[in-house]
């Protein structure tokens, strides 16, 4: 099965209605949060509600644009992280979607009072990364670097796992979010050490196949750790702010604000900090950066961690809007890819703008032809690819 065909990130009208009736935390209805939806896999999806074509008045238009922008914000976050990882490491990070799902489901587990399975995965990945780091550094290993590796790969995950034991069973939303980010973020670095660094000199295509392998493995592990049931999390804010004909939810404001903050943060990081500039240098010229003393493994570890952080955050942001299953992340991640590809896998503003476009295309197509929403979104990259191929020089040797 590819993803879960009947999961929608955005079903604008029904979702807005759902947002309006989202249960209040702490209130009576709050006990039902997170709601668990049990889905029989391999069964036919519910029939999409057939809509008689209706005139699109300006309110619906605004609603769809609003919906598109909010979803687009998530895709923008993912697209930015994909561009970051690709420019620095040449890896097309297909498993980014799994970080999204891990983020959402880990937080949902905290909210439900479970110990999330990702803690065990973090410990296991850390141990695997430890072995991989030892193997990679076996010729230059000394006591100090051994200590640093052990600290990074063994002590850090153990400390995070310890923290999940110390906090109360239901740690509260803020602590849950912080713990979720702490659990998922280092997984990026460990994944890089285990799967990608041994392939550092491989071609983009080989790295892409490795990415598909990581995606398969991480999705399967998601099924092991979270089961086939889907989860939702409470919104970050249940405020409803009337704005003309629209009602803007506090959640969507959070999403836009955090997206803007991440973009600003990335911009500051790359523009102003030394380590950010080192990453930029690696993206522009890997060999040159290496000669200047910037280790590609450091750059890879860092960019993967940033990507995992952004992925987990995206999952946390999107989980109140739609039920997240262990394999939902793949489709969300791929839509980020559509945006990143439209931006040429190179331009951050291009990817962010394209992500908003993808969100809006999705909102409109789910309104007009909800059954073919995914088809329309994924086929949107074909004209872009066509345009790129017509513009490109006919004969060039691939890298």
């Amino acid at each position, binding site marked *: *099965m*590819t*993803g879960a*065909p009947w999961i929608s990130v955005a079903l604008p009208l029904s979702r807005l209605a759902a947002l309006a009736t989202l249960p209040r935390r702490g209130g009576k209805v709050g006990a039902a949060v997170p709601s668990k939806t049990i889905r029989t*896999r*391999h069964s*036919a*999806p519910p029939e*999409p509600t057939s809509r008689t074509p209706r005139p699109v008045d300006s309110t619906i238009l605004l609603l769809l644009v609003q919906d598109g922008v909010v979803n687009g914000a998530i895709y923008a976050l993912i697209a930015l992280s994909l561009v970051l990882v690709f420019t620095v490491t040449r890896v*097309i990070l297909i498993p980014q979607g799994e970080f999204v799902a891990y983020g959402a489901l880990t937080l949902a587990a905290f909210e439900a009072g479970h110990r999330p399975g990702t803690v065990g995965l973090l410990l296991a990945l850390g141990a695997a990364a430890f072995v991989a780091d030892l193997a990679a550094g076996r010729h230059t290993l000394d006591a100090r670097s051994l200590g640093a590796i052990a600290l990074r790969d063994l002590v850090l995950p153990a400390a995070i796992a310890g923290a999940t034991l110390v906090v109360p069973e239901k740690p509260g939303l803020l602590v849950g979010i912080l713990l979720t980010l702490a659990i998922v973020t280092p997984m990026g670095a460990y994944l890089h050490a*285990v*799967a990608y660094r*041994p*392939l550092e000199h*491989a*071609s*983009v*295509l*080989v790295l*892409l*196949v*490795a990415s*598909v*392998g*990581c995606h*398969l*493995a*991480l*999705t*399967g*592990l998601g*099924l*092991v750790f979270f089961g*086939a049931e889907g989860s939702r999390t409470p919104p970050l804010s249940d405020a409803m702010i009337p704005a003309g004909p629209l009602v803007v939810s506090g959640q969507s404001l959070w999403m836009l604000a955090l997206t803007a903050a991440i973009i600003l943060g990335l911009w500051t990081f790359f523009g102003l900090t030394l380590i950010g500039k080192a990453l930029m240098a690696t993206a522009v010229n890997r060999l040159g950066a290496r000669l200047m003393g910037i280790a590609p493994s450091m750059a890879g570890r860092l960019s993967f961690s940033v990507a995992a952080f952004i992925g987990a955050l995206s999952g946390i942001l999107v989980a109140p809007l739609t039920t997240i299953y262990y394999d939902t992340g793949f*489709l969300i991640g*791929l839509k980020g*890819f*559509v945006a990143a*590809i439209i931006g040429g*896998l190179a331009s951050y503003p291009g990817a962010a703008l394209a992500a908003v476009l993808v969100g809006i295309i999705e909102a409109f197509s789910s309104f007009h032809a909800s*059954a*073919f929403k*995914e*088809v329309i979104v*994924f*086929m949107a*990259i*074909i004209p872009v*690819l*066509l345009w*790129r*191929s017509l513009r*490109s*020089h*006919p*004969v*060039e*040797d*691939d*890298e």
Partner: protein
Amino acid sequence: MSRLAPLLAGLAILALPLVPGVPPFWFTLLNYAGLAAIVVVGLVVLTGMANIMSFGQGMFVGIGAYTSALLTLHLGVSPWLGLPAALAVAGACAWVVGAITLRLSGHYLPLGTIAWNISFFYVLGNSDWLGRYDGLPGLPPIAVFGTPLLASEQVFYLIWGCVGLSVVLTLSLMRSRTGRAIRALKGGRVAAEAFGVDTGRIKIVAFVYAALLAALSGWLYAHVQRAINPTPFSLNASIEYLLMAVLGGAGSVWGGVFGATLVTLLKDQLQNVLPLVLGAEGNFEAIVFGVLFVLLLQRAPDGLWPLLTRRTGAPPPPAPVAAPPLPPRRAAVSGPLLEASGLRKVFGGLVAVDGIDFSVAPGEVVALIGPNGAGKSTTFNLVTGVARLSAGTVRLFGRDTSALPSRAVARLGVARTFQHVKLVGTMSVIENVALGAHLRGSAGAVRGALGLDRAEEAALFAEAQRQLDRVGLGALRDRPAASLALGQQRIVEIARALCLDPALLLLDEPAAGLRHQEKAALADLLNRLRGEGLGILLVEHDMDFVMGLADRLVVMNFGAKLCEGPPRVVRTNPAVVEAYLGSAA
């Protein structure tokens, strides 16, 4: 391992139904393996030979299956009529998809096929006329001589017969002129285009061929299962096909069949064992497959088949056969072969070549010299149509070729070698050289796959052998090109260029990496070629070699022409001395 091994394995498989007591489930499993193997053989052509990565083979299996299913259900025709329709529809779809996506560079193509395959899945699942996610049940079985094939043991022969057919056709295709062009894509598109291969078209040929095999598998699947739904044609299925190719070894057709069988059996075992271990239902085999993918790429990027058989995937080249020589292509040329005037190339803000003029006449050796970065190789690329001129004109044989692509320039009778050797390392020396004669043959993919190109092939290989003997490397014909020393590889490139029967030969640093005696032999060869009326333009850093050979030198520095003239004049030109040794001041 001898060449008999696959034959013996095939016989063992064929004898299986004769063994009493074999559970029918084994046949079901082997049937699945066979169905996958047909798809993977096509994927080997794509991934292993043409360097095209596709995550969309599941889609073409699905197109074949659904086409035949719709025809047999609604028109009541026999599955045997569904087969040509399935092939035609899948082939047409592949042509359209390929025409749109195949021109993309490396990673955009697989991402594009992911988008196609996902969209295809949702179209299947949401279209009433395709039965939505429930699919289409009640398909007729395939009948042979009036007997419907229903039991696994019966279908077994049909499926593995199709596997055998796919393997034979594919091996034959890969050995042919078209197959060499497909395999040349591994050595880079620039080299293939330089010998007249339309790489855009040849990629589509490979893509359509793989889609046809996928559709054959889909047709079999539809009428063996007698019910279809979207799931087996999803992106995950396409990923599994790729895993099979990577596991077995995408470099060889046998590796593909091996990988398909292994993954199918492994998947079955994992589906039995993992739910017991983990205590839950689900497709947990994805974890093992994912880890397997990454480990293989890290430890055995060529797959298991070459490890097991200790053979490279490349099929051995044909043995030498006597054949009549190819007719010469060259027409008598009067006037200069090449006239370059005002060549200019700008990369962003950098002027790499700035207003270069020179000409080459028949029977003349002109050398382009200059310090590193002077723009010599860029000039080569401008003359041969690899790079687009920013300004200026190139005239070849009196004709303005400024706007022609490099394969059209090759067709006029211009052959070249490359500064960075561009041979297909896994292909034998003789096949690399035979690629040079691509334009002197005409057999297409169909003639190649059916083996109807024997006479032409013999002539092409005889010519390749002749040129290889001429450059003194005839004894190395069967060695993989990558196993030669770098200097020898440069000479192989010259033999390949000569196979084109060129009127103008462009050599980019031919003497680099050669020993003294080899250099003398090369100079001797070039002198003979000059005697035959060839025009030669060469870039070279070895001044002794150049001064002794060239009729004229064109000296470049910082993209501009410094001076031009016979060696003894250039040698004493103060500007040249300054450019090479720095000014005295």
